[in-house]
């Protein structure tokens, strides 16, 4: 069954540490996205990609990097994690019609 999976599902990191969130999709979609969801801000787009090897900045890219090594995989990298990056992170994949399908989310706590 086509799906978007994320790992880890929960992560506790220390301030200044490096965190990598991984996403895998079996939808064969060209486009992949990283969002964060916070109370009071809703869902905000961090980075997106329209194919292997491409990464583009979304609305709130500062403090985040992204990597798309293949059609199936899209990673979000926090080189120097800060407490303000404590959030729930969602990955999504989408085709050319604008529809997006979301993964289960990763709850990240930065202490």
């Amino acid at each position: 069954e086509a799906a978007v999976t994320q790992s880890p599902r929960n992560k506790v990191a220390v301030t200044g540490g490096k965190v990598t969130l991984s996403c895998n999709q079996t939808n064969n979609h060209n486009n992949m996205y990283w969002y964060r969801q916070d109370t009071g801000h809703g869902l905000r787009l961090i980075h997106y990609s329209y194919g292997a090897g491409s990464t583009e900045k979304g609305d709130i890219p500062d403090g985040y990097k992204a990597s798309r090594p293949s059609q199936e995989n899209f990673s979000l990298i926090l080189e120097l994690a800060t407490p303000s990056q404590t959030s729930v992170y969602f990955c999504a994949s989408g085709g050319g019609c604008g529809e997006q399908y979301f993964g289960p989310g990763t709850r990240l706590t930065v202490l």
Partner: protein
Amino acid sequence: GQQVQQSPSSLVLQEGENAELQCNFSSTATQLQWFYQSPGGSLVSLLSNPSGTKHTGRLTSTTVTKERRSSLHISSSQTTDSGTYLCAIALMNQGGSAKLIFGEGTKLTVSS
């Protein structure tokens, strides 16, 4: 201003009643998608409906593109329908990708 507005912000129903959720948007959208999110859960795509009427199970969505509005009708509500319903429009980016603009959601509570 807010590009996607949803109403009502919250709705309380008795099991078996019908729900009508509204979504108004201010930009031309190539796609409109309704999502369900349970507390602490992920976003589940319910319907993609950029225009016209679509049905799936107890859900019916009607989108009138030129009036920039969409509705989601839930018939015979169940307690398991409780959660937040999000409306999102897609604005196309380069390379064929899309940026989703979300409304703030309607929180539905169905009691038995």
